[in-house]
């Protein structure tokens, strides 16, 4: 009985080939667009997802624009539970042209040791450490501009004015899929030496301190102790976990993330209208057939099931193709937006959300036609001429 039902549903769906193909194409486009938009949203959160619980970020409590005196490092080290401290400055320079954006940081020695997810060969690391002008770039970044170890990279300063040049000494790979391979690091000492000469007021300052702690569960307590240490000083601090720090960035552009989320559901609504239209037309054309089935003794529920199954079948095909295409498309899309969204991976939950929305589309699209057809009076249905 059930196989018969499925067979009928399939034949019904396939009766109007052109319409079936068009509907499925529409579904594929919609499911694909939904998956892509969801991936953009998850790319927004990539920094927070990749953050470690065992690292704290300390910055000026006023805002990131204000720097902290470097002398704070010793007082942080004395706090119980702190394993390692390093510091970094956002450089924000321009490589050749403003369009070539990538994050650049001046980092103190020891910074990279706090990031075990950056994999660098020992030889390259040593080469970087001994070269004062040395730089480290992520694999994706190096590939994008065709950099090789030994290349000179000119960067024009914006915050720290002047023309700077660095020698690429090492390239790091990400240990995890969501590790950001789009960053550039160089020696904080190099920056500091220059600042001492040009603008002594800005020397010996760090934008953020990175603090590795022994146990992630102590994060809140240690942050409290550190911030208390610097309260009522000239530069008060705000210490939070790396995740909270990254989420702070996401929150600043939250309006955009929310807009993209809303739009991702709008596309589902659009395709729902298209699908509902297809089902309504199919049901209307077959009123007399459904009446005949009823006259033969099939129950109304059987007819309703038939329509729902047809809708589900179309959506299943559309969703399957859509989900399968999401991965290659995300790859292409990701390479275009590499400098904006360095980590662009389809989240594990995305295909499930896509399937879920396909089922929702199928059920809602079939709802009205199914109820109407199940309720049709046999005489009316037989009289109808479609």
């Amino acid at each position, binding site marked *: 009985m059930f196989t018969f039902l499925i067979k009928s549903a399939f034949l019904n769906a396939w009766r*109007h080939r*052109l*319409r079936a193909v*068009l*509907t499925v*194409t*529409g579904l594929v*486009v*919609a499911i*694909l*667009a939904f998956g892509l938009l969801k991936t953009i949203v998850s790319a927004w959160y990539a920094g927070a997802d990749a953050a470690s619980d065992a690292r704290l970020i300390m910055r000026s*409590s*006023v*805002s*990131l*624009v*204000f720097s902290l005196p470097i002398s704070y490092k010793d007082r942080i080290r004395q706090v119980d539970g702190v394993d390692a401290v390093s510091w970094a400055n956002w450089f*924000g320079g321009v490589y050749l042209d*403003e369009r070539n954006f990538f994050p650049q940081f001046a980092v103190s020695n020891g910074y990279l040791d706090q990031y075990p997810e950056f994999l660098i060969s020992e030889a390259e690391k040593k080469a970087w450490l001994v070269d004062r002008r040395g730089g480290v770039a992520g694999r994706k970044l190096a590939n994008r501009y065709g950099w090789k170890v030994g290349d000179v990279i000119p960067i*024009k*300063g*914006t*915050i720290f*004015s*002047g023309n700077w040049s660095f020698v690429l000494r090492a390239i790091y790979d990400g240990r995890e899929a969501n590790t950001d391979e789009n960053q550039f690091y160089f020696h904080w000492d190099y920056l500091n030496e220059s600042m001492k000469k040009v603008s002594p*007021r800005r020397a010996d300052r760090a934008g953020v301190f990175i603090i590795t702690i022994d146990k992630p569960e102590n994060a809140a307590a240690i942050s409290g102790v550190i911030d208390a240490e610097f309260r*009522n000083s*000239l530069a*008060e601090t*705000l210490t939070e976990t790396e995740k909270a720090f990254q989420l*702070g960035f996401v*929150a*600043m*552009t*939250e*309006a*955009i993330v929310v*807009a*993209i989320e809303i*739009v991702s559901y*709008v*596309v589902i*609504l*659009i*395709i729902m*209208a*298209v699908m*509902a*239209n*297809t089902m*309504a*037309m199919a049901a209307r*054309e077959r009123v007399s057939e459904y009446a005949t089935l009823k006259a033969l003794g099939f129950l109304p529920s059987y007819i309703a099931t038939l329509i729902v199954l047809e809708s589900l079948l179309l959506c299943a095909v559309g969703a399957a193709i859509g989900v399968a295409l999401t991965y290659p498309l995300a790859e292409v899309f990701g390479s275009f937006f590499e400098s*904006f969204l360095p980590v662009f991976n389809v989240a594990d939950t995305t295909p499930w959300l896509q399937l879920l929305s396909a089922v929702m589309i199928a059920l809602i699209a079939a709802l*009205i036609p199914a109820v109407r057809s199940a309720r049709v009076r046999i005489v009316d249905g037989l009289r109808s001429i*479609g």
Partner: protein
Amino acid sequence: MSSRIPFSYIWRNLVTRKLTTLLTAGGMALVVFVYATVLMLEAGLEQTLVATGSADNVTVIRKGSQTEVQSAVDRTQAAIIESNRHVASGRDGSKLIAKEQVVLISLNKRGTVKPGNVVIRGTSSVGLTLRPQVQLSQGRMFRPGSAEVIAGRAIAERFHGAGVGETLRFGQREWLVVGVFDAGKTGFNSEIWADGELMMQSFRRPVFSAATFKLAESHQFDALVKELEADPRLTVEAKRETQFYADQSRVMAMFISYLGVTLSVIFSLGAVIGAMITMYAAVASRVGEVGTLRAIGFNRRAVMLAFLVESLLLSLLGGVVGLLLASGMQFFTISTMNWQTFSELAFSFSLTPGIVAKALVFSLVMGLLGGFLPAARAARLNIVDALRAG
């Protein structure tokens, strides 16, 4: 005979199939809504940043820095700029130049712990004179030398502690908000203004970020740029204030525009397919009618035109509904971080006549694309076969 098929025939076909018409036009309406909304956002952003500056004002920042926050201009350099002959003088003879310090502070949005970077502009009464679009709407101006601030409307509404009578803490001091200003649709609405000299002391930052002044005569801008560049004591660049603010939103404008185009293309594919399905069904169910029309003398072109007009009507309905929905978005304001300046910027959706025209054309193109193949099929039907099918 080449007369046209009556319009009422076309119209009634749409009315008869209410559900189908509604669903198809509804799908298109959503697409047009997204399309128009994105265009409105782009226009709103542009209006905001262009309106922020005045063409007669010039902003000078340190060479190489792109924003006021990144820039630093020391007192000596600021004095040299002030003495330039192109700087206009006010009625009392003093130069119309605002030497300002601009920094960012992190504030939490009202009712949340979500941070946003807000611009604090340390200025003087000249700063207000130079920007007539800034009007106090509540409270009073801050008193020079006291720890008082005035907040832009968008900030006062959205951020914790920025309303009149509330206090903000930064630079080791409590600052009392004594006024709220309304700067129309400009970026100044997303700023907080304080006394410049006091702010420099509080932050222990003895440099200005930028100097903005009024040109004595607007057309002398090029001469001014030349003079400033030729002066070996200065390492600055000058831009007209309008250009300066327009440059600061380039990345954001580009992002919105790319996103909008991508979304519109993808979504319109779905809507075109919807229209195609509807129109193919319309043709299929009316084969007999088409045969009759042809038999009584309407030619192929007339039949094709009738179906195309039906499709265009359908899409126009979608376009109008979509635009109506989108026009409701004008009441909303978006506030987000501008990547280039790293600071909060509020802007609203702005519906311009150009966007209305674009959205309607967009919807008609969707109708044309969706209706063309089905209409062509209807036109190609053989009279005898078509009559027999009916």
